């Protein structure tokens, strides 16, 4: 929600603070950047955008004012469609979103008007996830996941949204998991895990570090694996630097089967998981945005990553994850947003046959 500068100033003075106007030179001097978050205020994406806001204000040339604006609705489709119609091409409108916006685009769902694969990528932040299981299943590490003594029950929200990479990882590992979809959010799923109603869950890193680690220490949760991170060749085989003690899905497969994963399941998992985890939170810009603006963001991201304050804060929340920007990041995201026709049709068939999704 935008607050007009005048009102901010008036209230700030009323509360006893003064706003020091900084008049500096630079590309964004005197400008305002709107960061559109297509989810509700207070959600994980909104909080992440607010977390990054002061660092961009500090390091972008000209110190622009940044407004984080929530535009929820339609499972993020409404906000992204709004961006498609209203974004400016001078870098002052950014769509900051997750795989919940990317998956409907990749799958070609109804109502999607935004051309996500055409957008320019200003910056991206990893949003990796950790799978964990209840000790009541008898599982003590990833290698034993197939020997669970009780049926595995996974709790999720909707198959075609952010649960997709998790469900695909079960396909890759060929696990017999009962997926109960229809929860309100990942928070209620975690609550259901603590209540013993579900026994297999994925949580994104900030939540894992602040909530689940407490359960791990108490012996009521067993961490299994992460989605992994992208190696030098662009494959999702490396360990996630955010939780380096845990194997990646790739490693778990290799350990269980004695060979590298391959085939359509693996290709589909790679495509979806890299947009969800490795480039989980991405700031997109209008397709006509000039290279100059993107270069500015690349050097700004480098400056933010080097900022000791940012390093200290991100250590607390994400175990020190860093922002990405530049040509390599953009190429990888665009590749993940345009999977092969086989992968696309595999995903559509899987979702409609196994999870009853109508396209």
């Amino acid at each position, binding site marked *: 929600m935008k607050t007009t500068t005048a009102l901010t100033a008036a209230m700030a003075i009323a509360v006893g603070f003064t706003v020091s106007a900084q008049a500096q030179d630079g590309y964004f001097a005197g400008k305002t950047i709107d960061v559109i978050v297509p989810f509700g205020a207070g959600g994980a994406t909104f909080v992440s955008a607010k977390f990054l806001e002061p660092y961009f204000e500090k390091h972008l040339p000209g110190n622009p004012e940044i407004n984080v604006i929530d535009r929820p609705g339609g499972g993020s489709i409404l906000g992204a469609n*709004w961006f498609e119609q209203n974004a400016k091409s001078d870098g002052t409108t950014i769509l900051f979103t997750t795989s919940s916006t990317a998956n409907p685009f990749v799958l070609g769902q109804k109502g999607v008007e935004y051309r996500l694969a055409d957008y320019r990528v200003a910056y991206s932040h990893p949003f990796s996830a950790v799978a964990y299981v209840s000790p009541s299943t008898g599982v003590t590490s990833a290698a034993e996941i197939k020997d669970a003594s009780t049926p595995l029950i996974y709790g999720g929200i*909707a198959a075609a949204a952010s649960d997709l990479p998790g469900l695909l990882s079960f396909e890759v590992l060929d696990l017999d998991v009962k997926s109960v979809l229809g929860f309100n959010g990942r928070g209620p799923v975690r609550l259901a895990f603590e209540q013993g109603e579900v026994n297999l869950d994925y949580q994104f890193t900030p939540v894992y570090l602040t909530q689940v680690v407490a359960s791990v220490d108490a012996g009521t949760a067993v961490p299994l694996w992460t989605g992994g991170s992208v190696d030098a060749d662009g494959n999702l085989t490396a360990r996630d630097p955010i939780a380096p003690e845990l194997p990646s899905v790739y490693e778990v497969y290799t350990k269980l089967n004695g060979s590298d994963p391959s085939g359509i399941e693996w290709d589909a998992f790679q495509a979806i998981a890299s947009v969800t985890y490795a480039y989980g939170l991405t700031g997109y810009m209008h397709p006509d945005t000039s290279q100059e603006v993107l270069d500015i963001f690349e050097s700004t991201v480098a400056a933010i990553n080097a900022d000791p304050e940012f390093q200290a804060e991100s250590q607390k929340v994400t175990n020190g994850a860093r922002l990405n920007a530049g040509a390599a990041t953009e190429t990888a995201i665009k590749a993940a947003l345009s999977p092969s026709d086989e992968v696309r049709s595999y995903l559509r068939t899987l979702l409609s046959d196994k999870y009853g999704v109508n396209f």
Partner: protein
Amino acid sequence: MLENAVIAIEALLDPVRLLALFAGMLVGMVFGMLPGLGGVAAVSILLPFVYYMDDYAGLAMLLGAVSVVYTSDTITSVLLGAPGSPASAPTAIEGHALAKQGHAAQALGVGFLASMVGGLVGAAILFVAIPVAGPIVLKLGTPELFMFALVGLFFASSMIGRDLAKGLAAACFGVLLGVVGPAQAAADFRFTFGQVYLLDGFSLTIVALGLFGVAEVISMLAKGGGISHERIKVTHWGEGFRDFWVNKFLVLRASIIGVFGGFVPAVGASASTWVAYGHAIRSTRDRSRFGRGEIRGVAASEGANNATVISDLVPTLLFSVPGGPAAAIFLGALFSFGYYPGPRMITQNPDLMFLIVWSVALTSVVGAALCFAATPFLARLTRIPFAIIAAPLVLIMVIGAYQSTGTMGDIFMLFTLGAVGWLMKHGGWPRAPALVGFVLSGPMEQYFWLTNQIHGWSWLGRPGVLIIGSVIVIPLLISAWRWLRRRQTAQAKTESDENKPAASESRPDMALVMAVIATLAFAYAAFETMSFNPASRLMPLLAIVPGLPLCLWLLVRGFREFDGFEFRTFKEPEILAVLIVYATAVWAIGLSVPTAALLVWMLFSRARMRWWTGAIYGVIVFALIRLLFETLRGDPPVGALVALS
């Protein structure tokens, strides 16, 4: 523990923090009074300023705002009949009826006192229960949450009213509204007509404002004059205090209902208020006054919604699972201050927990006192011609609706549902069961589906389920036993003929129109339901199977009672038409021009203001509306045909 409580109150009594708390409270009071804008809007507008303060001051400011909203919304609900927030819809029904009879002071007095007690009870329960709140929430699994929804439905059944067919049909219609959008069970999108806007279903704020607020505005505009024809005496608070004292235990029970409602994530205030209202109806011997101004209805619902405020924060603080949108923003603020709510919150930050308790308690008392002080001035509004208040009221409801997604769909839905609510009002359909059906259909479907997926049918034997189930079964057994005994003593006394049906706003022609529309809606729904996955059919069918035959019966009845349309003395359709033209014009040419035209029409044609007072007033209202749009949403709607804003 007590030591932490003392540290917390000392921390809160720091002047800057107290100032922040009361500043937040004032903002919360204003937003509580503006229909459609409530805790969420107040918290969002305060959020940027919170970052200028230290953690306790910032959080106190947000708490001040959220905990007073359900106190000050009583004013709007009672005086204007438009619910100040969705959770005060029962107050709008009962309190406004009292205000029209000249008993506004009584309704407001009881409302404020019940609000205060509700807030205090909530704070007191949390104070005592902090160590055990976590385990309690952990005991409430999906089967228990499903049972809570059933309890809600059971209490809602007492709101059906005298015309059984219309009451049940209204409830079914509400459930049908509630299933629009994503199915919980399978990946079906129901009744969306290819509109992205409907992918999330209807927003509660818009449904509550449409069904109650818009319809009320139309009626009062048509009637002309002030809100109350009686002189409203708000100087004599004595009556209110006496009524409150008589109903003190009802308020206490309602507050406890509210506390439990808050423990259930995502159900919160709106559902628990209805449950408390239903409880008030069930526990009253003479039910004839409900719907026409029963003070017990006000007492129960205001006690409940205020008690929910603090317990809504329990799942937020202990498990990082926000109970509602305002709690979600509060959670975001906690993150920003470096607090990561979770199981360790109580041991790591006990002071913070007590700071919350104290903030809510303090705001409850001071907020209620301020409301008492402000009311005599506000009550004068009820004597001036309603058209003068109606202009800003309609526009504020538009802004409130526009907060949901910030698209034109919000404004269209507000007036479409307004038309439906207006038809229901004049067709003799009770609107309370429709709103309850809407609120409960989502959680009922979701928790039933999750429960059955996870537990099969074994959940029926869980102790929590049995305890909550007894809340339904025991009253049923008691009333069955009473009924049997009455039959044995023979000759059931004819029900004391209840005064006459509610001041008869019901008209045969509108009843017929409503029956036709509802029949078409159910028939179409039946057709589309057949294309869903089996799991997504259950809930719509639960509405359609009883709803369609009931509507057909109402259709037959409607034709029988129909004796032609009569519009000579019935001016309301004109006003409805103006509002719909307004919505369409905003879509076509943007906000400014139609809003100015609407103001001119209301102030000069309806209210007959003198040109210069009207012009000054109109310009002020217009400027305030633009400012609110800019402040809350950043961008007023831009025309689709002519790109003005």
